[in-house]
C-alpha cells in the first residue's frame, strides 16, 4: 500500500490488536473504518481500571494480522466483505496444486 499523500510505502503495525498503516516517508497514519473507534475504546479502557466491554460495535471484528505486501482488500482490511468474489474461483483452482 502506498501513502495517499507522499506515495512512499506504508508499513503495517499492530497496536493493541489494532492494525495501523504508517507511511515510511512522512510518518502519516492511515486508519481503516472502525479503527479510530477501536483505539479510542482502548484509550478509555486504559484510564478506567475495570471497564465493561462495550457490546455495540460488533460489526467490525478484529481481522487477523497480515503482511504489508498482501492484497489491499485482503488480510488486515478484512471484514469488508470483499472476499467472496475470489473465493470460489480460487478454491478449486489454486488451493489444490503445488
Amino acid at each position, binding site marked *: 500500500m502506498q501513502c495517499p499523500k507522499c506515495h512512499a510505502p506504508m508499513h503495517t503495525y499492530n497496536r493493541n490488536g489494532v492494525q495501523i498503516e504508517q507511511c515510511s516517508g512522512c510518518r502519516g497514519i492511515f486508519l481503516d473504518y472502525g479503527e479510530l473507534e477501536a483505539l479510542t475504546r482502548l484509550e478509555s479502557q486504559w484510564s478506567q481500571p475495570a471497564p465493561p466491554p462495550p457490546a455495540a460495535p460488533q460489526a467490525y471484528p478484529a481481522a487477523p494480522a497480515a503482511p504489508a505486501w498482501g492484497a489491499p482488500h*485482503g488480510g488486515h482490511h478484512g471484514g469488508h466483505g470483499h472476499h467472496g468474489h475470489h473465493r470460489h474461483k480460487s478454491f478449486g483452482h489454486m488451493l489444490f496444486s503445488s
Partner: protein
Amino acid sequence: MTADTDAHEAAHTATPLVTTLKALATGTAHPRTPGAARTPCGCGTTLLADRPDATVLRHAGTVVKAHAPGTDRSALTGRLTVAARLPDVFLPPLATTAVPLGDRLATSWPYGAPVDPEDPDAAPWEAAAALLARLHRTPAPPGLPPMRGPAKAARAVALLRAARTTPAPAARAVLAAWAALPAWARAEAPMPEPGALCHGDLHLGQLVRHPAPDGPWRLIDVDDLGTGAPAWDLARPAAWYACGLLPPDEWTRFLTAYRRHGGPAVPADGDPWAALDVPARALTVQTAARVLTKALAADRPLDEVEQAMVDACARMPSVPPGPAPGSPD
C-alpha cells in the same frame, strides 16, 4: 465405481507407463494365490493424475504412483518409512520399498477420499492444522533428507526464467521478489536450525480420508517430506490469506487449530508473521511463477486470481523481509 468410469478411464490414455502402472495396480489390488488363474475383475481403473512429475492411478482400493524421473531411491525409501511409522499423520504406504518401472519408481497406497474442490465450506482446515502440528512435533529420524519446499520454489522460478522470451513486467516483478528472499528460501543455503519434520508441499490436494469416505484425514505425498523450516507447511494457506484468496475466518481456523495442537512453527500467541513472512513470500512467488509460465505457454492473459499472486510479488520489494508487521519498528 460409478464416479470412476468418467473421461479419465485409463484405457483411453494408455501410454507405456500407464499400462505398466495399471498392471501393478491391478496385481496389488487383487493378489493371486500361486498357480491360480487370473480372472478379469471388472473394476474400473482411474487415472488420478498424469503430469511430468507424477502419474497416479487407482484400481479398486489401491492407488499406485510413478514418482518423478530421477527420484533418489534411498531418499524415497526414507520418506516412505516415515509415512509408514506415522499412521496417525500420513496415509501409510502398502510397502516401504519402491518398485522400479522402467526408469521410474512406483509406490502403492490404499485409496483415500480427497477434499471436494467444489465445496469450500467442507475444507478440513482444523484437521490439516492438527496433522501438521503432530508432524512438526515428531522428532525427525536421522539421515532423512531436507524438506524440498525451497527446491520446488527454485524450480518454478527456473522454469519461468526459461519460458520468458520477452521481458514482461509481470515476470520481472516475480523474479525481483524472488531475488529479495534470503538464500535459504531460494534453496541456496541450508534452512535455519533447528529444523522439524515437514511435509514440504502442503495444499488441499494433499489430504485424504482413509478409510474412504469418512475415515480420519491423513496427509499424502511424501516426495518433498524432510527436515526443514516447519513454517513452510503453513505458508501456503498464509500466502492465500495474504493475497486475498482465503477468507480471514478460514485462515484463523487453521492457525488457531495449529496453535491449539502445540505446533512449533509459530509462537503460541501474538503475531505469527515473523515466522511466516519469508516462506509465505516464497510460496507466493512459486505460485506466481507457475501460473505465469503456464499463461506464457498458452499465450493467454492471467485471470483475476493469478493476477492477485503477481500483484503481491510486485508489492514485496517495498516491504523488505525482516521485522514482521506487529513488531515495534
